[in-house]
């Protein structure tokens, strides 16, 4: 029960960060560079969140972290590809 509550709390933190980023992205839609900065900060928050979440759940493994890092890297290379 306690674990489920903590999981929900972790997810709420993640969703709050995502919604905040999304609203900033929409607000800053005419400033590509500021949008990119928001995505960078979101990506960093996502990595920190994943580390804390899996550490807390005692599920932190090398493979899991590699997957998070690669997902973060993929979003960054896609976003940077839009700056020509």
């Amino acid at each position: 029960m306690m674990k489920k509550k903590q999981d929900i709390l972790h997810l709420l933190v993640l969703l709050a960060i995502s919604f905040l980023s999304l609203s900033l992205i929409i607000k800053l839609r005419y400033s590509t560079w500021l949008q990119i900065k928001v995505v960078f900060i979101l990506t960093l928050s996502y990595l920190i969140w994943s580390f804390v979440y899996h550490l807390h759940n005692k599920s932190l493994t090398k493979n899991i972290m590699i997957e998070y890092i690669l997902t973060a890297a993929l979003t960054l290379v896609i976003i940077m590809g839009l700056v020509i």
Partner: protein
Amino acid sequence: MKLANFFIPHKDTHKKAHLISWEALFFYVFIFILLQVGFSVLGYVKPGILGIESSINQQKIIELTNSERAKKGMPPVKENSALDQAAKLKAENMFSENYWAHFAPSGKTPWDFIIGSGYKFTFAGENLAKNFYTSDDVVVAWMNSSTHRDNLLNSKYEDIGIAVVEGVLNGQKTTLIVQMFGTTNVVSPTAVVNVGNGDKISVKAEEFSSKPQLVASAQSPKIIPQVLIDPYQVSKGLGLGLLAVIGTLLTIDLIILRKRGVFRLASHHVAHMALMSVTAATILSGHIGEIL
């Protein structure tokens, strides 16, 4: 290796679909980096092949500028041929010196072009834009930047000059838009130029007599090759496509695991989907155009 295992988790081991495994993610990152390197090399080897095709109209930008001024109850600015000339000279100079800034690497200032075209201003301003698809996008972007909006809605200006010039900048076909404002009425003790980044620069009186008269390039216009690839649209399309595929496969993975009632020690799909959704929103809402 079964084809189904590329899209859905393995039926016995419940291992993730191959297309969302970490090996696949590594491959996607590598492909996107390769694509960007390829664009850079192509831009260097075949300048002008990459770029965007714009449909920006000089008169439309003046109309839209005056429409924004009218909304604030301001008088319209009139097109001035000397300011048009100054804007054209500025755009051509950006292509010839290959820069994107208010000040040229050679030291040329925005007022060099204004004075050089014979416009004796007391107050002037410059807004720049590049790589927009339409005239509306340019004016909307300027209006969404406080410093550019201040220029556009400045009541001191009476005249406007616009240049929309195509050329090759950093290896890519680029459309530069230079907007210059000015007045010859005395509005301040010294002449001032208000550049789009918000800087207000005083121009010394002696500069008006020491600057050479500039003339428009007498050379025949350079032939710009037809754009074959729009790197922005290619990156946007591939990026959105890949995010959609990964998002769909992650959802399928979640549904199948739930149906099978198995637990797998793995990364959190919801986290990946949240990050990818914001990235997709950035791609969809973003603009290629830049203002300065």
